[in-house]
């Protein structure tokens, strides 16, 4: 059953590739153009995010690394359409986004499973809204449960799951909806260090299999390197992109890579960039 499902999935992604083949020449998957955010407060205006521009390519895994309060969550919420920017525009496949929509799946740091739905119904929530027939929903649920390693848990309720399991289901729920891009706002931020490293591997596996474009926020340097094709470092408030660092570590990534010299070099470079910013935000 699962393998059958896999066939259907690869078939559909093949179709997508063909569809993309025509405009593929230039348009990036996601284009952020001069996006900025200013909050109005009693004491005047606060710049949360300076005008920022960057692009994410189709199938690319991009992490944004920055000190807390630098406005990295603001970028994500603007891309998701949950917040409005005060300037600039966000283009997804060349189309300007306007409000939230199922083409941009999101995983939050807080646990956002629907507590009254079991794991399976959580995963198929978006599919049901779309009117996908029951049989197909069941197959997709089974496939994604297997992908995140939670086969056998379909009837469990969120309260019965650990934090890591909840976030796995949240990832499966976002992927099952087949979004064009997956937006992740420090999804492992609330997990303990051991669970975190396992979750990173689970996510990479899901990414490799689903070929999704991912935009991922973190303040964890190791995490940003281990996952990414490119790391964007952000400045302290008011937030701005400081530097883009391409990560050329081999894929598929293994846990053991974290102790290689190459990894260490990336880490050193990022740490010094981040340190400058953290120091600035203290002074």
């Amino acid at each position, binding site marked *: 059953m699962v393998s059958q499902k896999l066939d259907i999935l690869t078939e559909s992604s093949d179709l997508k590739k063909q569809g993309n083949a025509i405009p593929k020449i230039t348009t990036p998957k996601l284009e952020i153009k001069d996006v900025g955010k200013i909050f109005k407060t009693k004491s005047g205006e606060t710049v949360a995010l300076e005008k920022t521009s960057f692009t994410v390519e189709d199938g690319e895994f991009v992490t944004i690394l920055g000190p807390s309060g630098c406005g990295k969550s603001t970028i994500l919420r603007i891309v998701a359409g*949950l917040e409005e920017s005060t300037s600039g525009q966000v283009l997804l496949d060349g189309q300007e986004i306007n409000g939230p929509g*199922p083409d941009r799946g999101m995983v939050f740091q807080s646990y956002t499973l629907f507590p009254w*739905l079991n794991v399976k119904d959580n995963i198929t*929530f978006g599919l049901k809204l779309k009117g996908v027939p029951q049989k197909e929903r069941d197959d997709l649920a089974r496939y994604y449960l297997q992908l995140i390693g939670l086969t056998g848990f379909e009837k469990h309720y969120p309260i019965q799951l650990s934090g890591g399991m909840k976030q796995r289901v949240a990832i499966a729920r976002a992927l099952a*909806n087949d*979004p064009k891009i997956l937006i992740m706002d420090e999804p492992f931020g609330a997990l303990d260090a051991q669970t975190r490293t396992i979750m990173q591997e689970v996510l990479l596996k899901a990414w490799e299999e689903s070929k999704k474009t991912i935009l991922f926020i973190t303040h964890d340097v190791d995490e940003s390197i281990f996952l990414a094709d490119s790391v964007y470092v952000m400045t302290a408030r008011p937030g701005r992109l400081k530097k883009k660092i391409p990560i050329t570590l081999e894929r598929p990534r293994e846990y053991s890579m974290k102790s290689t010299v190459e990894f260490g070099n990336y880490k050193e470079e990022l740490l010094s960039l981040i340190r400058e910013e953290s120091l600035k935000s203290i002074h």
Partner: protein
Amino acid sequence: MIKKWFTPNKEIPKKIYNSVGFITFLVVLGIWSLLSYSGFVNALFLPTPTTVLATAVKLFVSGDILFDIGISFSRVFTGFLVAALIGIPLGILMGSLRIMEGAFEPIIGFIRYMPASAFIPLLILWIGLGEAEKMSVIFLGTFFQLTLMVMDVTKNVQNDLIDVSYTLGAKNAQIFTKVILPASLPGIVDTLRITFGWAWTYLVVAEIVGASSGLGHMIMQASRFLQPDKIIVGILIIGLLGLITDIMFKSIYRASFSWMRKDGY
């Protein structure tokens, strides 16, 4: 051992927990017995437990009280039902749409401080002494509190839960039906349980003035004819009816929201 039972927030054995509740009941009954059987308090003011029990049996055998219970229950139930049917949807809208909150919160917040019983003369003037007047008192006593409590419950639905639903493709109407409603349902059922308890207390107020039937009326009549045993029977029955509806709501809660418990039962 004893010291453990008096440590703040410490769990105690379930057997002990249940026993102490039972003992409290016995103590109250004991004091009552002591005061009445000894003749310390005149039987005209405080009848003995056995007299009250005998009166209760008599009232049930003759069937008079069943009629009063029936009419009282239908008043409480109808008045409360109307309050819930309007209050729940209004409270949900007020909790999720700022414009609805802005429009209704100030006026409801104001009216709820006006005592429902003070409206009785006005209600009699407007709609007479019939059933509608009794139900209106129950309605006035519960509607405003209920609406505000439902609003609070709805407001407490986690924002991220609503945000994630938008990213899964939910439209505004679906946010109400598929997210806000199921998320606030346990809180709403609990609100109904609490406000239904209040409805019982307003019943007596409604039936003491200008009623010719019902438990409140029976209590009033018994007072006029110096029958304290009948008054106590009436009070106990209202208490029991309240307790039964409370247990009913609690079991609905348990049966409907097993997803809130780790063991799933």
